[in-house]
């Protein structure tokens, strides 16, 4: 299928979605997992991720009649709604503290065999939560959702150049916080060379 036909099919599907519940369900099923994973990677907690995922799709249902674009643009629109929903969730300090507490409890309850990974997860959560929300979004979209810089730029209503420099700043902050992890890895890389 050439690009023009694919774009036309996408647009037809999106148009159908606005009036046909069955088409909406197809769209929902094909994007549910991505939205849930994104929320899980931003919040590091399943229950919170499920709650926010529900909010995201309710928002989608309420606003789908306004959406114009193809499925790729719909994907970016979804991530944008999810980003706002996650940021709103995290803005509540109590929730954020609870997430950190849950993270520590989960780490402590793991067996010795996976203690290393669990400890790293706690480190990662603390490090990522210390970033401003925009940087958290960029880190998650880049390293967990594997989006390209151009796609992240579209989600964040920004330019790829701006995203690139913000990604560099976010990584520099993470490097400071996760200094030991980065140093250990640097040594391995140097030894390999």
């Amino acid at each position, binding site marked *: 299928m050439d690009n023009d036909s694919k774009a036309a099919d996408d647009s037809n599907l999106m148009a159908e979605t606005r009036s046909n*519940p069955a088409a*909406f369900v197809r769209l929902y099923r094909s994007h549910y997992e991505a939205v*849930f994973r994104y929320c899980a990677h931003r919040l590091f907690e*399943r229950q919170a991720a499920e709650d926010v995922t529900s909010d995201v799709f309710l928002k989608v249902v309420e606003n789908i009649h306004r959406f114009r674009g193809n499925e790729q643009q719909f994907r970016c629109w979804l991530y944008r709604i999810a980003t*706002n929903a996650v940021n709103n969730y995290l803005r509540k300090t109590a929730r954020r503290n609870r997430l950190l507490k849950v993270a520590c409890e989960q780490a402590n309850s793991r067996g010795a065999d996976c203690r290393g990974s669990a400890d*790293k997860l706690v480190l990662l959560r603390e490090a990522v939560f210390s970033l401003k929300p925009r940087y958290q979004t960029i880190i998650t979209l880049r390293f*967990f959702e594997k989006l390209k810089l151009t796609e992240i730029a579209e989600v964040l209503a*920004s330019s790829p150049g701006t995203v690139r420099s913000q990604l560099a700043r976010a990584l520099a902050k993470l490097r400071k916080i996760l200094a030991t992890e980065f140093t250990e*890895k640097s040594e391995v890389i140097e030894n390999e060379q």
Partner: protein
Amino acid sequence: MNNDERQFEDFVSNIKFDDTPDSDHRNKLEQDLLRVLTKQPRHKQQPLKIWRIIMKSNMTKLATAAVIIVAVVLTVTILDRTVTPAWAIEDTVKALDQFNGIYLSGVFGVPIEKISRGEDLVLRDGENMSVEFWMQANEERTRSENYRIEAGDGTVWSVCNNMTYKYDPKNNTVRVQSGRGIEMSIWPCGDYLSKVQEFMQDWQVMYGKDAVTGRDCAFITLSNPSQGQSWWLEIDLETNLPVRAKGWHNTRREGTPSMNFQRIIFFEKLPDDIFEFEIPEGATVIEE
């Protein structure tokens, strides 16, 4: 991918985290959504409103420069009822009324400081600067509530929660003042378009494909002789939204454009944190 990115990717790849979706949640949510979807009333279009143009400060001229581009596009869209049937005017108006956020990025042909001091826009060779704009409407959609400009030299203006921040990278200072130091004092939709219509002339429409995406587009040229300006605009025929625009400070579209926006994107709502201003490390804060 640079070294920091590689190291961080390696670090996260070694972390085990259960991110598998739960099918019970997915199915339950699907049922909930279907219930909402079938009960949902049809969306009503918002009534058109009239807004006055108020130039609040010299800096507003910069904001207005951006909004004029958008407004010009919208006006032409409404005026032209003779073009391809694929271009549904009513859909365009309806679609545009749904958007409360606008992003523009491009190049200005004059130093941004000169515009903020209220000087006329005059094209001078070699004085181009990249600029990005983010604008979010207030609830009534009468003006911008939050506003952000980032210039290529690192200068940043940000209006958020009724506070204005201006970062000067040369002196590493942040000037802070209460109120909206920059605002789009009109929001480009509804009857405002009829005001723009008064000063636009000589418009022509051609059809073709976007040079980058290959999508079908309408290319519009027009001028405003009373202010010695001319414009080139591109509208995506699928979304009926403006996607690119150029402006000249002559009526013949001669020479390098004094404004060249290669990305114009409309949003229902821009992410809030775009407008939040973070004081750069070591910057001197000056309260005004």
